[in-house]
Structure formats: structure tokens, C-alpha cells
């Protein structure tokens, strides 16, 4: 009865049960979401627009090569400068990561999406290069600090312990840093790719990157020109891998800072006004009077009923549906990049498809789908599914390559269901739980496109210059993301899934 083997087996069965139950609850939440979701196709004839887009994709057209070069250079400059600052700040925070308040600060910084940061900085610093650079640098610093901190934590403590002074910065430079160096580089270069995408998306709210022109050409229906911009974006991300040479990095950084100096016309009175008046809740702005308390309560109640609650509910509905459809797409598509299902040549082709799909930011995808489907939750869900599903499928396929099968293992669907999927499932779930927070953050932000998630209300608050509302709504979305992040970590631990950082 009390043999260790039996106990272990019981524990394993328990964990299988838990994994099955977790899967069930995620699927159930998504089904409930589907009942509540608004998935209408508003556009009466979506296919004509779709066909026009297809035409554009087949006949890309560059209106001016000089301008295209300039926009590309600006996009790159924003990404490089933002990442440079983020790496410096993230490394500093990672060194202090053992303090709980630093961890909390990092969680807060990365819980606010770069577009929200950008909207805030534009209020203080105008539509300046500095606003864009800071909007990228701050949330990215929070993410990098977390990943770096966790990587440092996992290094072998033995080399450090042999030193006479094991606690100084010198000891860190000679032991912990080189021990974590490789995964650190891999993750940082993946983040640079993300920064490039974010830099493009910043264009959608007015900063002078490729995204700015993508938005205007798409909105006005110049699909041939938009296609040229899209291809530039894809080429840029793919070329990144080959352009990242150690000796060239300092040159890139210098070039970026020279080409697009991160400056802004700082008006101290603007910034002061922002903090002391603009973001202070309206009822508090006239100072404290007898009825301020009740007016504040009314203000909060109204905001909750009209904006926070619907925004939260829609964000949750979209992200839960998108999470499960991402999972389904990933499980269907990973064989494209798996040697157990495709030959060498077709695997390269399949993986390229996944990588290209991953290259396109969700925000851009959603914008495009919105153009022919019309405003509903559908574009958001489709965009989130395609982007995140492609990322997961690419990773899962790569991971499945490490599985060794017997020479006489079954083939086809049997192989998928009996051999590969059972071995892959825990890893899959771990990755999916990491994606949960990302999808939640993005669902909120897609509201800026007109889908009624938190981002929609934030954006309208900015437009009406009600910054007090915007600040509170952004805070709400940050708390939601922190909550989901913690819940996902709790689940990973409970299901005994890997808790190591997601390094791509």
C-alpha cells in the first residue's frame, strides 16, 4: 500500500486528472465566452474587400523608395533605442530582483501595454521620438528584468560559492552572468524582434514608423502600397536574425541614436499639470468639500457601470476564446514544423509559413480583418489566434523534434494521437499558460481599433481628454494582467509544469 512506486503512480494519475480538468475548464470558459460574444460579420459583402486585398498582395507597389527607406529606418531606430534602454534598465532591475518590491515594480511596468504607455507619454511629451522610445523601453525593461532575474536564479551556484567574496558585482560578472549568457542572448534577440513589431504598432497611434503609413494606406484602401509595406516588415524581421552580429551591435546603437535622437520638447508645466490635475479623478480636482466623498463614489460607480465592467467583461471574453482557439490552431499546425510528420523540404516550407505568420503583429492583423469583417469581436479573435497559434506551433514543432520514436512506431493520425501529443501535452500547456497573459494584454489593447475592450474606453477617454478616466482604466487593465500572470504561475506550479522562463 505504502510502496513509494504506488505513491508515485497515484501522484502521476492525480496530475493527469488535474491536467484534464484544467483543459476542460479552459474549454468551458471559452464556450461560455462564445455564447456571450458578439461575432457578427457587419460588413454586408466581406469577400469583395477580401478580393481587393488579395489583388493588392499580389501586386505590391512602392510609391517612393526614398520614403520607404526613411520609414524603415525610423522603425528600426525606435526598436533599437527602446531595446538599448530596456536592456540597461532591465539588467539593473534584475540585479535587485531578490527584493519583493522590485519584482512588484517589474510586474507593474510590464502589465501596462506599450501602446498605453505611448498614449500616456504622448500626453506629457508630445508626439516626440522620446515618447516612442520610452513607451517601448519601460514595459520591455519589466519583462527583461523578470526573465534575466529568473535566468540568474537558475544558474549553478557552485562557481560563485568557491570565491572569497561571493556577493560582489565582480563575482556576478565572472560567474552568474557567463553562466546565464546563452539563454539571455537568445531571449534578448527574440525581444528585439518583438520590439520591432511594437515599433510598427506605435505608428498606428501616430508615431512616424511603418505602422503609421500602413494604417493610412489600409484605411484608404491602397492595398498595393500597403502590401509593399507589409513585405518590408516581414523582410525586416527575417533579416534581423542575420544582421545581429556582435561587432555590428554598437554601430547599430550609435546609428539609431544619431539618426533619431530620443528628444522631446519637455514642458515642465505640462508634466506637472499631468500629474497634479489631469489624472486626478474629476470630483477631487476642486479640492475636498463636504460632498466630495459622495461625488467621488458616484463618479466611480458610473465609470464602473459604463466602462470598466463592460471593458473588463469583453476583454475576458475575447481572451478566453482566443486562448482556446490559439491552442487548437497550435495543436493542428505544429506538425508543419515536426520531423515526425513532414519531410525535410516541406518542414522548411511549413515552418516558414509559421514564422511569417508570427512576424505580423496582432494589432495589424486585427486591423486588416476589421476592414472586411467590420467591427465585432471576430477580428480580434482571429488576429490573436493566428499570431499566437503560429508562435506556439513553431515552438511545439521544434520541441517535438527532440522526441525519439521506435523504428516501428505507427504513422499518420495514430502517431499524432498516441505517440506525439501525449508526450507534448505538458509542454504545450506550460507554453499556453505563458501566452495567457500576453493574449490578455493584447485583447485589452485591440480595443483601440473599436472593439469594446478596455483599450476602447481608454482610447475614447484620451480622445475626450478625460485623463483621470484613462489612468484608472489603464490601472484596471494592469491589475487584470498581474492577476492573470499570478494565476498562470499558480497553475503551472500546481500542474508541475516547467516554470523556467519562456526562452525562444
Amino acid at each position, binding site marked *: 500500500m505504502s510502496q513509494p512506486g504506488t505513491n508515485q503512480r497515484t501522484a502521476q494519475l492525480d496530475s493527469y486528472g488535474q491536467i484534464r480538468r484544467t483543459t476542460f475548464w479552459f474549454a468551458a470558459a471559452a464556450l461560455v465566452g462564445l455564447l456571450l460574444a458578439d461575432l457578427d460579420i457587419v460588413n454586408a459583402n466581406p469577400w469583395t474587400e477580401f478580393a481587393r486585398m488579395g489583388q493588392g498582395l499580389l501586386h505590391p507597389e512602392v510609391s517612393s523608395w526614398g520614403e520607404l527607406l526613411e520609414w524603415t529606418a525610423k522603425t528600426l531606430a525606435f526598436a533599437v533605442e527602446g531595446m538599448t534602454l530596456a536592456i540597461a534598465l532591465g539588467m539593473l532591475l534584475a540585479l535587485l530582483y531578490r527584493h519583493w518590491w522590485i519584482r512588484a515594480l517589474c510586474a507593474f511596468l510590464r502589465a501596462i501595454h506599450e501602446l498605453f504607455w505611448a498614449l500616456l507619454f504622448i500626453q506629457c511629451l508630445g508626439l516626440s521620438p522620446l515618447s516612442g522610445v520610452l513607451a517601448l523601453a519601460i514595459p520591455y525593461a519589466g519583462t527583461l528584468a523578470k526573465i534575466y532575474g529568473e535566468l540568474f536564479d537558475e544558474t*549553478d551556484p*557552485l*562557481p560563485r*560559492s*568557491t*570565491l*572569497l*567574496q561571493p556577493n*560582489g*558585482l*565582480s*563575482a556576478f*560578472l*565572472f*560567474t552568474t552572468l*557567463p*553562466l546565464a*549568457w*546563452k539563454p539571455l542572448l537568445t531571449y534578448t534577440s527574440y525581444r528585439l524582434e518583438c520590439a520591432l513589431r511594437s515599433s510598427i504598432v506605435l505608428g498606428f497611434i501616430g508615431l512616424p514608423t511603418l505602422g503609421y503609413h500602413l494604417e493610412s494606406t489600409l484605411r484608404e484602401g491602397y492595398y498595393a502600397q500597403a502590401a509593399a509595406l507589409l513585405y518590408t516588415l516581414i523582410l525586416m524581421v527575417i533579416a534581423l536574425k542575420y544582421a545581429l552580429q556582435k561587432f555590428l551591435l554598437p554601430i547599430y546603437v550609435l546609428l539609431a541614436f544619431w539618426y533619431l535622437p530620443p528628444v522631446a520638447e519637455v514642458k515642465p508645466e505640462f508634466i506637472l499639470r499631468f500629474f497634479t490635475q489631469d489624472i486626478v479623478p474629476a470630483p477631487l480636482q476642486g479640492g475636498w468639500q463636504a460632498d466630495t466623498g459622495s461625488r467621488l463614489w458616484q463618479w466611480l460607480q458610473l465609470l464602473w457601470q459604463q466602462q470598466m465592467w463592460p471593458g473588463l467583461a469583453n476583454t475576458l471574453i475575447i481572451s478566453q476564446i482566443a486562448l482556446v482557439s490559439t491552442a487548437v490552431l497550435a495543436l493542428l499546425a505544429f506538425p508543419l514544423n515536426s520531423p515526425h510528420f513532414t519531410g525535410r523540404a516541406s518542414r522548411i516550407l511549413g515552418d516558414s509559413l509559421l514564422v511569417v505568420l508570427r512576424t505580423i503583429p496582432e494589432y495589424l492583423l486585427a486591423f486588416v480583418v476589421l476592414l472586411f469583417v467590420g467591427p465585432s469581436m471576430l477580428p480580434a479573435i482571429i488576429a490573436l489566434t493566428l499570431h499566437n497559434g503560429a508562435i506556439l506551433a513553431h515552438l511545439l514543432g521544434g520541441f517535438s523534434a527532440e522526441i525519439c520514436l521506435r523504428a516501428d512506431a505507427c504513422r499518420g493520425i495514430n502517431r499524432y494521437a498516441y505517440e506525439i501529443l501525449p508526450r507534448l501535452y505538458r509542454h504545450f500547456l506550460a507554453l499556453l499558460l505563458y501566452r495567457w497573459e500576453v493574449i490578455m494584454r493584447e485583447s485589452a489593447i485591440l480595443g483601440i481599433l473599436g472593439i469594446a475592450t478596455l483599450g476602447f474606453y481608454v482610447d475614447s477617454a484620451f480622445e475626450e481628454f478625460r485623463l483621470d478616466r484613462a489612468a484608472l482604466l489603464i490601472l484596471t487593465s494592469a491589475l487584470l494582467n498581474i492577476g492573470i500572470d499570478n494565476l498562470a504561475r499558480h497553475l503551472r506550479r500546481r500542474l508541475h509544469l516547467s516554470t523556467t522562463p519562456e526562452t525562444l
Partner: protein
Amino acid sequence: MPNETSGGRQPPLFSFRRESLRYRAQPILNNVELDIYAGESVALVGKSGAGKSTLLKALRQQQSRSVAWCPQDCGLVPSLSVFHNVYMGGLNRHNVAYNLLVLLKPPGRPVAEISTLLDKLHLPEKLWTPVSQLSGGQQQRVSIGRALFQRQPIFLGDEPVSSLDRYQADALLTLIACHHPTRVLALHDTEQALQTCSRIIGLRAGHIVLDSPAAEVSHRQLAQLYV
């Protein structure tokens, strides 16, 4: 007994009075009663698991600022070169900026110092080889090099020469002796222990069962430790 041999000497460097030594909250050695003085060379012998490593760790804690430490598991940084792994022993002698410079572009002086040291360790050609590309024996020599470069009066080594052949092991134990007047070494080779150390401490089943000058230890006493 310690009082007999220590008449008129300095106070002991290491001293235990009926102490229990633990490893991960598990008592490994009981009732340890021990003094070690400057200038002594001590060999710890006994079966694996007898508590040699635990005793060495406890010794290190008592003199952490003046001990050159050579653990059984080398604890090298695989991606760094032999030079940098050895240099690590001397990190505390320089400020952070200088250490950073050494990491990025080593100046001539430490390179010359460590080259000389590597000659003595029979690793002359390997200065810039990443440690991950070395064999087990070579890594052990790098680990000894790092401990020597710490330049401390006391050397604590946990099986420091276990992966080396007889000839090299003897040469390195002599090298360690040259630089460190006081040494405590865990050794599994009792022949080596008798040759290179002046005092033998035998551990068995959680107790110190033998503690006498090497000249007075019989082979029968040693053999009993391993029964």
C-alpha cells in the same frame, strides 16, 4: 592530546569542541573535538560518505577570509576560458572596473602571472581554451589553479587530485605545499596521504576515530577505516 602538541604555540586556526556537524540539517559528524594549528598539513581519510566534505565545509566557515578553497565538484564556469576561471580566484584583490576590463580585454600583467601558474600546472597551451572543452583531469587542474591564485595561507582541498595520475598528483600536491604552509586535504589514496601530510585524521560512521601524526599511523589502522 592537542594541548600536548601545542605547548607555547599560537591559538589554533580551527577549533571544534564536541560539535555536531550537519549537512542539509542531517547530522553527519558527531562530537567533533578537533584543533588544527598554523603550519600543519592534515589528511582526512575515510570511506566516501564518512563526512570528509562536511568537515571541510565547516573548516572553511571558521576561516572563510583566509582559505584557498578547492571543492570536489570543480565549480568552474564552462563558457569562460582557463585564464578567466583561474583569474576568478583573485577577483577580491581588484575593483569591479579592473575586473570588468580583465573580462573584456585582459591586460598583460594578470596574463603573465596566470601563464606562469599554468606552466606549473602542466596546462601551458590552454590559456584561452573554454573550460567546457577540457577533460576532467584538466578541469581539476584549473580548479587547483584558481585556488592557488586566491593566494591564501590555508589550503582546503576536497579530493583535489582524484582525477589525475600518480605522477601528476604528486607534483601538484607538492606545488600546493610550496604555496600553503597550512593544508587540510581530503584524500582517498591513503599512500598519498601518508606521503604528503604530517597528520592523519580518520573518519568512520560519523566519528573521528583516528587522529595522529602520519609517522605513527599503521597500515592496519588505516585499513580499519575502510571496513
